[in-house]
């Protein structure tokens, strides 16, 4: 059997599959169950400094080839993470945990970085997809290289944990944004966040999501993710969690060839259940065995050679 173990920012993962942020990440017991079902690691739902209510339902739905969501990053805030989620998860810790943090200001990102470090996550993932409250147009940090870098610097200054930046595909040049974050001290990236989307119920003539528009994910976005990972790898050579439309072991192998070290999956759970993590890992091992790959790390970024 091929060795599926990978090293990401100095952290060992038994296989490259990782639960993406926002799915099954409300409680420690839910995160632990995902590891039991085969994931190499898990990412928490985005953690805010203070409670964030989120949007009203409908917040998500899927079809055979795509999925739309606008949950609105609902969360009880740092207090619950510190008092419940992390202490519970770290009791008989089953595998690496990535803490995803989100804020609307650079200052809050700094405070969050310091607070979350006390919870002892293995890695901090910075969600910069939210609008910058200090930007007059409310542009997301992720869409402006200077803003993305400023967030990275603020987080870097307050933690010694590895930090990775979650990038949005909704930009002209994702490589440029990644480079700016790398120069500001990022240790790696997660690419990609969801694309923008909207669906309308033609019988009642209204958008289906209460927030009207939302994030597009699912099988159909895989090429967008592979392209983004390719560009980020080319621009920075830093480790990447490749995520977006990954449903099978072969999808996972594909995004690793573009440059990903870990493979994030979220929407896959809709199609294959949480058991899908174990299935994808098994499919990856089968592919390796069939293709004479002894160590999975040898395929990372191989298309760049």
């Amino acid at each position: 059997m091929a060795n599926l173990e990978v090293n990401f920012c100095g952290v060992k993962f038994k296989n490259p599959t990782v639960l993406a942020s926002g799915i099954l990440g409300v409680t420690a017991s839910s995160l632990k169950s995902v590891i039991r079902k085969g994931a190499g690691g898990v990412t928490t739902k985005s953690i805010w400094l203070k409670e964030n209510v989120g949007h009203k339902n409908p917040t998500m739905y899927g079809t055979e080839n795509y999925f739309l969501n606008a949950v609105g990053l609902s969360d009880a805030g740092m207090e619950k993470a510190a008092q419940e989620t992390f202490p519970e998860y770290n009791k008989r810790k089953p595998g690496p945990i990535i803490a995803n943090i989100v804020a609307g200001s650079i200052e809050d990102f700094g405070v969050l970085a310091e607070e979350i470090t006390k919870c002892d996550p293995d890695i901090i993932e910075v969600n910069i997809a939210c609008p910058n409250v200090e930007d007059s147009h409310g542009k997301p940090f992720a869409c402006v290289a200077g803003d993305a870098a400023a967030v990275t610097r603020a987080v870097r200054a307050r933690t010694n944990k590895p930090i990775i930046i979650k990038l949005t595909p909704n930009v002209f040049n994702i490589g440029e944004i990644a480079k700016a974050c790398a120069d500001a001290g990022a240790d790696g990236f997660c690419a990609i966040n969801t694309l923008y989307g909207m669906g309308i119920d033609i019988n009642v003539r209204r958008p289906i999501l209460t927030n009207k528009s939302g994030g597009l994910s699912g099988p159909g976005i895989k090429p967008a993710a592979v392209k983004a990972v390719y560009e980020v790898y080319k621009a920075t050579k830093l480790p990447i969690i490749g995520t977006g439309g990954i449903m099978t072991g072969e999808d996972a192998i594909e995004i690793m060839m573009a440059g990903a070290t870990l493979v994030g999956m979220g929407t896959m759970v809709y199609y294959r259940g949480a058991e899908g993590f174990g299935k994808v890992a098994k499919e990856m091992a089968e592919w390796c065995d069939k293709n004479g790959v002894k160590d999975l790390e040898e395929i990372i970024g191989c298309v760049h050679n």
Partner: protein
Amino acid sequence: MNIKKFDSRFEILSIAKIVQENEMTKTFVFESSIGGKPGQFLMMWIPGFDEKPMSIAFDDGKELWVTICAVGPFSQKMHELKVGDKVGVRGPLGTHYKFKAGEHLALVAGGYGAAPMYFVAHEAVKAKCKVEFLIGARNKDLLLYGQKILGLGVDLHISTDDGSAGFKGYITQVLDKVMDEKKINQVFTCGPEVMMKVVGQVAEKHGVEAYMSMEKYMKCGIGVCGQCAIDDKGDLCCKKGPVMKWSYLKKLPEMGQYHRDAQGRKHYFFKPLAK
């Protein structure tokens, strides 16, 4: 690929009839079926307003009923709707009650749990099961579905907290007595979690498995958001449930203790005892 299988968009249905069950409760009738089984739920969408999980009160392949008590903003909005108004539904979702032909069942309903239990009883009677229907409420006026249940020809047992109808006390005391006197094969229950926990204990005392309709805060209903994960196994109420068995539930530290809100924060049913 089965395309419909992965389509969780809404089916838009017009309300065909509205039945006032009691002061707070209405049944919405749709002349359409979603193939729901007793114990399963659906997601109900008021376009442009909100969407909530609701139990399926009845679905016989021709008509779908959803019984809703006006307790919060969503259910109050439902109560403002008129015949002909459109809502979206998606489902059926989750697990359902299972029984074999000819079994002797005890169905224990607490308050509004009478609606889904009526559906179980209806199907069980069709399968030649013998049914003890136990229904508990705070008072006589809150007893739901009484006439409908009597129409099924089941043995009806009533309790009220104030004694205004039936036995004065808890329905679980009535269950204990019924199980002393009769050989029950399975116990099914729908009602407040704290009541269902006692139902589970009573059934266990008599060596019988109990299945119960669990209710946890749900957003997606399709196993993705993780909002309804139950401690400490982390299993999802929307997928492993809502109908789950007592021998599994009794081992969970969350059972009968707490639930979570839309942000995932814990709320205890009772104040935790000081350590």
